[in-house]
């Protein structure tokens, strides 16, 4: 055997060992179970094979935009007041779809320069244009708007990840989904009852501590009546839990301050605890900065009431007996122990910047996953065996060559899966099977060509040479086209379909190596041992 051939053989053995390691790592035992366990650790199974929940969430990014716009309106009002500019009204004409559109009504044209400078200095992310009848329209600049929306999605992903991590779900997938539709894909392996996880993820958990200015009132009208028909400008009405001691279950309304001295952003920690009545509650501590603000607020309002507001619902009101620095408690609302645990966890993970909505939910029970693996593996073994046997019968000696290449192809493909983070799904197993069928195409192309060349009177070594040479262009063309369609699948697909694209692509790449290089080396090796003129078994 000559030197180059030896080197090539070395390369092949090296590849083989490298990818075998990719599949099995260093197995603890070489029994069937030991090998399967080692393989299970290296190759990640998709949700459809191991069971679990797949969710697609829509982040309602307009919520985040709306918060920003309302903030901008507050700034505008404050500045207009400061500069003594009169205005009739400031509104968001289309809060649902374009919350960043703000219309100022009744600002005299003479105030133009002032107005411009307010927007330029304080609200640089907005554009302002004059319209008819002293009205002015503002809208967020497209780049700022896009940035804000994307930030809402990133933040939502971050928050959801925090929450799911604390639930102890192993290997969750949380990532942006689709092409710019502000969607999030969440995959939770092993979770087959998603109701609780869904509630936890969806909870916006916006905590605010406000001053309570009155209440509880049995209805909104009652509150209005007591205040003489008009609410103070700096106050809003919020619903709360049913009135303490009330016979009938019904909402209670509270009048609270519009501003909140402390919000969820100021939380350092939140833990489940019990209130003085022994009921489950959540106690929290504030950051240094937030604590200072809370202290200032409570020292100024000793004797007043404060309201703990969660997601725009008054959770409880309490008397301020003395200045409080950095601790607080959320109780009331007849929390269960599980709820107090979940709420403290949600508060620790931070608030969602925008609401979320579920678009898609799929649950695969583990029993189905196990059945799918069985079915997939059986189909793979049957298909593979059929091809291997056929090649042996049809091409005899060269059939062994093709079979060796095919098995190596599979080893490389599975090794790829082991090394990469790619997941094996049920369609992925189908991709493996299909690789066997399509991979053998390269061998058939080459072998048929060699037979043809032999028929045309070439010597075996010339025929092998010509066969590989001629088939090469075709092989490249066919591989490129299939890989192109797999790539498109990978870009457009999710989950199972992506798994299919992955195995098909890896399989075809591996096939380029095995069918062209490995198979050739085997032929060369056989030819090198043959007498000149001896026939080739093909």
């Amino acid at each position, binding site marked *: 055997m000559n030197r180059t051939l030896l080197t090539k053989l070395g390369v092949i053995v090296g590849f083989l060992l490298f990818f075998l390691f990719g599949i099995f790592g260093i197995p603890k035992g070489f029994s069937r179970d030991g090998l399967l366990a080692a393989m299970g650790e290296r190759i990640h199974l998709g949700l459809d094979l191991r069971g679990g929940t797949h969710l697609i969430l829509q982040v309602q990014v307009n919520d985040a935009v709306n918060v920003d716009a309302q903030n901008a309106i507050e700034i505008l009002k404050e500045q207009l007041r400061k500069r003594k500019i009169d205005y009739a009204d400031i509104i968001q004409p289309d809060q649902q779809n374009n919350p960043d559109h703000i219309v100022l009504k009744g600002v005299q044209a003479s105030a133009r320069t002032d107005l411009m400078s307010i927007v330029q200095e304080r609200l640089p992310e907005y554009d302002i244009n004059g319209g008819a009848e002293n009205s002015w329209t503002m809208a967020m600049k497209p780049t700022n708007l896009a940035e804000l929306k994307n930030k809402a999605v990133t933040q939502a992903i971050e928050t959801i990840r925090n929450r799911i991590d604390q639930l102890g779900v192993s290997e969750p997938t949380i990532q942006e989904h689709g092409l710019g539709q502000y969607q999030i894909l969440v995959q939770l392996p092993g979770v087959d009852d998603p109701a609780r996880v869904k509630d936890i993820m969806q909870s916006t958990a916006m905590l605010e501590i406000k001053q309570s200015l009155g209440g509880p009132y049995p209805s909104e009208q009652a509150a209005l009546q007591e205040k003489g028909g008009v609410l103070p400008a700096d106050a809003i009405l919020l619903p709360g839990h049913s009135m303490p001691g009330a016979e009938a279950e019904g909402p209670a309304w509270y009048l609270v301050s519009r501003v909140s001295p402390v919000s969820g952003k100021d939380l350092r920690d939140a833990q489940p605890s019990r209130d003085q009545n022994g009921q489950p509650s959540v106690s929290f501590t504030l950051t240094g900065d937030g604590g200072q603000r809370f202290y200032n607020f409570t020292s100024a309002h000793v004797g007043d009431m404060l309201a703990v507001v969660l997601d725009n619902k008054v959770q409880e009101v309490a008397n301020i007996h003395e200045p409080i620095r950095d601790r607080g408690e959320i109780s009331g609302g007849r929390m269960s122990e599980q709820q107090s645990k979940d709420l403290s966890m949600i508060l620790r993970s931070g608030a969602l910047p925008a609401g979320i909505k579920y678009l898609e939910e799929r649950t695969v029970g583990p029993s189905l996953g196990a059945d799918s693996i069985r079915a997939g593996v059986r189909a793979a073994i049957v298909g593979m065996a059929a091809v291997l046997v056929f090649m042996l019968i049809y091409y005899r000696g060269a059939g062994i060559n093709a079979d060796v290449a095919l098995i190596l192809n599979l080893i490389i493909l599975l090794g790829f899966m082991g090394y990469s983070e790619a997941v094996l799904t049920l369609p992925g197993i*189908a991709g493996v099977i299909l690789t066997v069928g399509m991979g053998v195409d390269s061998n058939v192309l080459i072998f048929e060509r060699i037979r043809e060349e032999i028929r045309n009177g070439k010597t075996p070594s010339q025929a092998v040479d010509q066969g590989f040479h001629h088939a090469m262009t075709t092989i490249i063309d066919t591989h490129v086209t299939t890989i192109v*369609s797999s790539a498109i*699948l990978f870009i457009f697909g999710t989950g199972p379909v992506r798994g299919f694209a992955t195995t098909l692509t890896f399989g075809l790449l591996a096939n380029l190596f095995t069918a062209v290089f490995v198979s050739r080396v085997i032929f060369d090796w056989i030819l090198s041992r043959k007498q000149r003129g001896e026939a080739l078994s093909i």
Partner: protein
Amino acid sequence: MEFFHDVNIDFLGKKWYFLAFSLIFSVAGVLSMLFWHGIPWGVDFRGGTLVYVKFSHTPDLSAVRAAMDRAGLRDPKIQSYGQAPNNEVLIDLAQKETSEQALDRGKIQIIGALETNAPAGKQDLNNSSSLTIKNYLMDKDPMHLGSDADQKYTAQAQAIVEYRDKTQGGVLSSFDQLKGAADPAAVATLPDGFFLSDFGVRNVEIVGPQVGGQLRQQAGLATLYSLAGMLVYLGFRFEWIYGVAAVVTVFHDTLITVGAFSLTKTDISLTVIAAILTLIGYSNNDTIVVFDRIRENIKLMRREKLSEIVNRSINQTLSRTILTAGLTFLTVLALFLFGGEVLHGFSLALVIGILIGTYSSIAIAAPIVVAYQDWRMDRGKRPSAMPAKAR
């Protein structure tokens, strides 16, 4: 062994038969899509709720239907699923039942409707998660555990669920089956808080209407991009008419495959689209192999007519074409027969597609190229030398 030795079939001479054959199938498919079954979009694309249920006994479909009626669920499609001994039923609720605010309402209603023998205050063990079971065990504390109760009961609950799902296939028919699966004390308290319904939920798919439309659009785009990619690649490697011929061929394959789905009323799911995209690649492979041979032969046989060259090329590659198609077909057939119900649509698309794809590379792609060259000749121009550049 050799199947095809020195074959010389006049494929181009039979082009009218091929055309008739293709037309019959395409037109049948298109008519079915337009006037009969429509395009049978799967839940991925049309939105809706699918619940796959496994019963512990042979399911009585009319009883299931009656239960759905009682729950006020309108027109669910109910059909048995998979092989008969699996006792599986698929319940398919149309999109209007699924508002986006309460995406899983349909699922909850279906499960509630099926739990006909539910005693008051008890939960269904066959459809409880391990968390529910753990919370129940924590409450009862049958093993009198101290500080690490949480962990130990979690393990017990997981063992019970695992046994139910992996060993019993998802449905328990009696509490006695759990003996040995978990701690006897824990198992003994279960009947106080749980009952056993006669079914377990295997799989749930809920797709909101918005996603459905979006996915349909994406699937269409993906198919178009695939076709465009082929056109560009082949135009670059050969000559534009070859790209066009290949794309027409592939379009023909896709049409017939989708038509077959419409005719057999098989749901087109996401994986079916994946299969169709794969077929686009596969059918192109076959076409390219023939085109490559034509290109090579044009250089060798300068005197011959193009139709003669094309015929010769098809015959020369016939052995390869049939062999590869046969082998790929073998693997796909294995998938269709043994791959399980989840892959049914996917493997069906591949089985049909590989047959059609192989046929069309011979019967459609090559005749288009020849017809184009003949048409050019008729207009008095020289046939363009096929390999613009033989790369």
